[in-house]
């Protein structure tokens, strides 16, 4: 069931009405049933996988809480991590590994073989990481071990099941106990606003841009560097709107049920450095990697020292981002994308230091603004550059795109269908207007007006815009594949 489908709107409406109509003791069981129904809507068989992840997490935390020896606890976490990540590795990387092995073997003409391609369960990367985070939190003492019932609720909660945000036990678990008796007006308007803005981002922006991007990236040889640059910029925005649109809808859906999920995006393309970009982009995953991978390794390397050298911490950053790249997809393009981001983050601090020195000497306000915008543009360019690897089918295509951008830039521009191009430009303007509004401290609940009429006017306007300009073909969200 996709968030941008009418079926989901009906499902959510029924869920919200029944949830508030039911007595308190039945609310959580109802959420579990709804969540499993939601997941079974894709492929019912994968509910078994979800159940497996829940059981492993529950057994692990039960075992951890039952032992006092740190060494044994560590061993349990290691086992638990292996068992929780096993399905992810199998479904996600087996195809990739078998292709690599196949290519290697065929080079030496030993024997030809081909393993059958596996269908990847939706959301596996997200709920596996959420379960693993929970086990580590219990091991660290940051969360209390929960009953099987609560663990099921925590891992399978449907608004975040298919593509996050990756929830944390200390934040989400207490919310299953302290709930509102009925939905407040504020809660309703916040939830509806989030869902509609998310749908707007997906249907009006992401799914419009995808056409131009697909046309250009599908025929790289035929297009000029200018068209490829434009398509790369459009892709960066498409990816952002697709995923942040999904996240907004997830947060909004949870809000209607009275739950608060992590905000996954905070205007990332208005970030003034790569570091700031990553504190605004896919926040739940970035913080997951920081808390459960970067920090533990950093601490273990630190030993008795006060601080790690810039080179060592840089290498660690590159490593963590390479892992993040692999999390996104089994392919060299994703690994290079991760490595590039890690590299930019590693080399950025000394460069930024120099930039700040220059900036501090500038007293003219216009020039200060110019430097501020320049920082945003440089960061955006760097991220768009990285996303070329994220979008390209393979490394050869990615390098061909870069070559064309560098050496064959002005060989005409591809417009394609005039209407689609017109909508694309309109949607780019819309997303920047939306983000600038938020960045300047605008009301996060955009659709809430001064009075009831203005609120209704805003809600109906956005519905009309989605109906008239949105792509309503229920296309899948990009991050579902991860």
């Amino acid at each position, binding site marked *: 069931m996709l968030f941008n489908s009418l079926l989901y709107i009906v499902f959510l409406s029924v869920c919200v009405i029944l949830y508030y109509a039911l007595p308190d003791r039945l609310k959580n069981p109802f959420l579990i049933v709804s969540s499993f129904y939601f997941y079974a809507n894709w492929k019912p068989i994968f509910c078994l996988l979800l159940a497996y992840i829940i059981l492993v997490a529950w057994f692990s935390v039960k075992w951890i809480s039952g032992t006092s020896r740190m060494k044994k606890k560590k061993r349990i976490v290691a086992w638990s991590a292996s068992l929780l990540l096993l399905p992810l590795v199998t479904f996600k990387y087996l195809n990739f590994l078998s292709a690599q092995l196949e290519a290697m073997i065929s080079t030496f003409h030993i024997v030809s073989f081909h393993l059958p391609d596996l269908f990847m369960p939706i959301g596996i990367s997200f709920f596996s990481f959420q379960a693993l985070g929970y086990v580590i939190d219990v091991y660290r003492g940051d969360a209390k071990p929960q009953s099987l019932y609560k663990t099921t609720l925590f891992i399978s909660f449907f608004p975040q099941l298919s593509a996050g945000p990756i929830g944390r036990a200390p934040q989400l678990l207490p919310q299953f106990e302290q709930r509102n008796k009925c939905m407040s007006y504020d809660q309703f308007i916040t939830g509806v606003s989030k869902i509609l803005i998310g749908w707007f981002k997906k249907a009006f922006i992401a799914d419009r841009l995808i056409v131009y991007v697909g046309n250009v990236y599908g025929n790289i040889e*035929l297009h000029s560097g200018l068209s490829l640059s434009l398509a790369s910029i459009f892709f960066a925005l498409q990816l952002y709107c697709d995923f942040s649109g999904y996240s907004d809808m997830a947060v909004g859906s949870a809000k209607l049920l009275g739950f608060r999920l992590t905000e996954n995006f905070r205007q990332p393309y208005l970030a003034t450095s790569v570091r700031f970009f990553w504190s605004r982009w896919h926040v739940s995953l970035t913080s997951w990697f920081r808390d459960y991978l970067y920090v533990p390794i950093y601490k273990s390397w630190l030993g008795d020292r006060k601080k790690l050298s810039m080179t060592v911490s840089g290498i660690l950053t590159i490593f963590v981002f390479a892992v993040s790249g692999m999390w996104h997809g089994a392919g060299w393009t994703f690994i290079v994308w991760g490595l590039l981001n890690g590299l930019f983050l590693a080399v950025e601090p000394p460069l930024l230091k120099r930039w700040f020195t220059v900036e501090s000497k500038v007293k003219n306000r216009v020039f200060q603004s110019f430097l501020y915008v320049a920082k945003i543009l440089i960061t955006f360019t760097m991220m768009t550059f990285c996303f070329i690897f994220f979008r390209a089918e393979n490394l050869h295509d990615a390098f061909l795109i870069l070559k064309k951008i560098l050496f064959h830039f002005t060989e005409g521009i591809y417009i394609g269908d005039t209407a689609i191009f017109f909508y694309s430009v309109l949607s780019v303007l819309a997303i920047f207007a939306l983000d600038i509004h938020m960045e300047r401290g605008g009301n996060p609940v955009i659709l809430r007006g001064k009075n009831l009429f203005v609120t209704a006017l805003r809600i*109906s306007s956005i519905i009309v815009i989605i109906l*008239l300009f949105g792509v309503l073909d229920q296309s899948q969200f990009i991050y579902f594949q991860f």
Partner: protein
Amino acid sequence: MKEIKKTMMLVLLVIILLAITEIGFNFFVQYSLKYQSSGGYYKLLHTLYSTEAEVIGVGSSVAEVTLNPSIMADSLGLTCWNGGRGSQLIQYFLCVQEKVLERYKPDFVIQFMQPHDLESPLTYDSIRQLKPLTKQDKSIRKYLYPESPFQQFLLNSSLWANNSNIFYLMYALINRGPNRGNDTCGQKPIYGTYRSPLSDVAPIVYSMNEIVPDTATQFDKLVKTYVDSGCELFIVICPYFETDCLNSPTIEWIYEQERNYPNVHFLNYWNDPRYIGKREYYYDFIHLNNIGADLLTRDIAHEIMNFIRESNKKTSRFGGVI
């Protein structure tokens, strides 16, 4: 209770505002269709509801810009109508077929196809020409959403029915129509990589894809219905400026139809040396300009004429028309 009341009030206000917008937008749609400068709406209405031409051409933009009805009519001595509409796919062809055959049986149907039509999946979102008509003619709805009665029900709303269509509604209001300027030689403006100069860009590369079964089923239905109704069906593939392959699964499929049915005829100009690489005949890579279109119309008319002569030798079926 107060909170619930406020929420319900908001929901009610949204519904009222949406209803007002729906009514207002419906007026706009009707206005934009009635007063559009390009006349495309009337062309569509004529194709679906009033033409009784003996020769009818159906297809997408390739048909729209290629078939010159007056040349065809003069060459054959038959009335001719070009029912081609830009960006339309099989669902549009089927809809035209149903509406035309409901009224009368044309002698000749010229069905324009692309060399890769059967290799693309069905996409219902792009049938924009039919969308504005779905409110008044419910029988069209099944071509947009064949499997979903709920989606068909939603087409009662103009807002829903005209999703993604507003650009074209506005464009049709300001576009001066097919005879607007000498620079386009009367052809429909199409922008893209291949716009100009034609010779400086690489040709379109076609890979041999598999036939999509759902699409093939629809085309099978189209051919079978024309065959059963007794029309002479001429399937035409127009020439492209340049191509790098000679055949496609779609072309093989059309040859098979020609073999299977005596009243199906295939005119394949895709790699015709008389047209390939000749800039003076093309508007862009796949669309002929008026010079090329007139030439091709004469070629098609010549083939139909040959067929009529051959038929007249055997029977007197077309005896009176030449």
